[in-house]
């Protein structure tokens, strides 16, 4: 059993230059800086509309202090969204399928929210470890459970993104292999598999957008508790 289906997740190198570098820098080209005109070109207008939309969504529940996080949250959202969607183009490499990259994004940001809370309002952040209204005998067990749940958050954030994208890409590759293999043997079944492939691709586009949004939303929720 060879590992050909996992080869798409190997970081490609050309003469020692990794493609992941270009894959991570390319999204910057797709979002040009607006310049100082009142009415900008259509791409910039769309970009400004989109940034306003996500900023409003993410920052409404946060207090004044939380608004300092606006830049990092919106740029993270844009980066993840673009990387995920670009990965659906043929032959491209998706950096977010690498667990290392997602953990590198999730862990420091989660730690930042935790340390902000512990530094500025330690009793309030520790108070989140015990939900209101728990019966007294359950308190020790619940504190253990809540601490575990707190400590597992960065792992969950990173693995969620990695697993969703990797699974999606793998499914696309498997079903397209099945389609091409069946094309000569049973054309009608191949046609059905093509329909499944089309639906799967639409699902993958949705998943790419949703996963980026969920990542940043959860980070903003962790921030809300701690700031």
């Amino acid at each position, binding site marked *: 059993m060879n590992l050909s289906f996992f*080869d798409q997740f190997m970081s*490609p190198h*050309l003469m020692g230059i990794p*493609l992941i570098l270009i894959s991570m820098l390319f999204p910057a080209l797709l979002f040009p800086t607006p310049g100082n005109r009142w009415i900008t*070109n259509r*791409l910039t207008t769309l970009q400004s509309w989109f940034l306003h939309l996500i900023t409003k969504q993410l920052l409404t529940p946060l207090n004044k202090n939380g608004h300092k996080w606006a830049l990092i949250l919106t740029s993270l959202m844009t980066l993840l969204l673009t990387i995920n969607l*670009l990965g659906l*183009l*043929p*032959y491209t490499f998706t950096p977010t399928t690498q667990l290392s990259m997602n953990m590198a994004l999730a862990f420091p940001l989660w730690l930042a929210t935790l340390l902000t809370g512990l530094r500025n309002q330690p009793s309030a952040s520790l108070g989140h470890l015990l939900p209101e209204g728990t019966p007294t005998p359950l308190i020790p067990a619940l504190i253990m459970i809540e601490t575990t749940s707190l400590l597992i958050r960065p792992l969950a954030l990173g693995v969620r993104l990695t697993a969703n994208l990797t699974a999606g890409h793998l499914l696309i590759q498997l079903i397209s292999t099945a389609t091409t293999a069946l094309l000569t043997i049973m054309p009608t079944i191949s046609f059905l598999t093509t329909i499944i492939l089309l639906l799967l691709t639409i699902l993958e586009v949705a998943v790419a957008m949703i996963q980026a949004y969920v990542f940043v939303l959860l980070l903003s929720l962790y921030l809300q508790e701690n700031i």
Partner: protein
Amino acid sequence: GPLWQRRLLDVQLAELPAWLGTRDLSPQGLLGGVQKAWNSYYNKYINVKRGGPAGLSMLLAGYCLLSYSWNYQHISKISFLVSF
């Protein structure tokens, strides 16, 4: 005009090595060249009054081509496709 003043598209194929010799190939020079190229592409296809999907799509198509060429060495090996 003289060779060192001409833009790339105005240079004949035979004169290409000589033209490359006149260019500023330091890191700042290369970066400036890349920035000029991007600005001319941006101002011609994207920064226009009634732009359409074409400006962005050409970028994405170029990115696909780049990724293909980066992966070519791996994809050309037919042995990794055989799985039955």
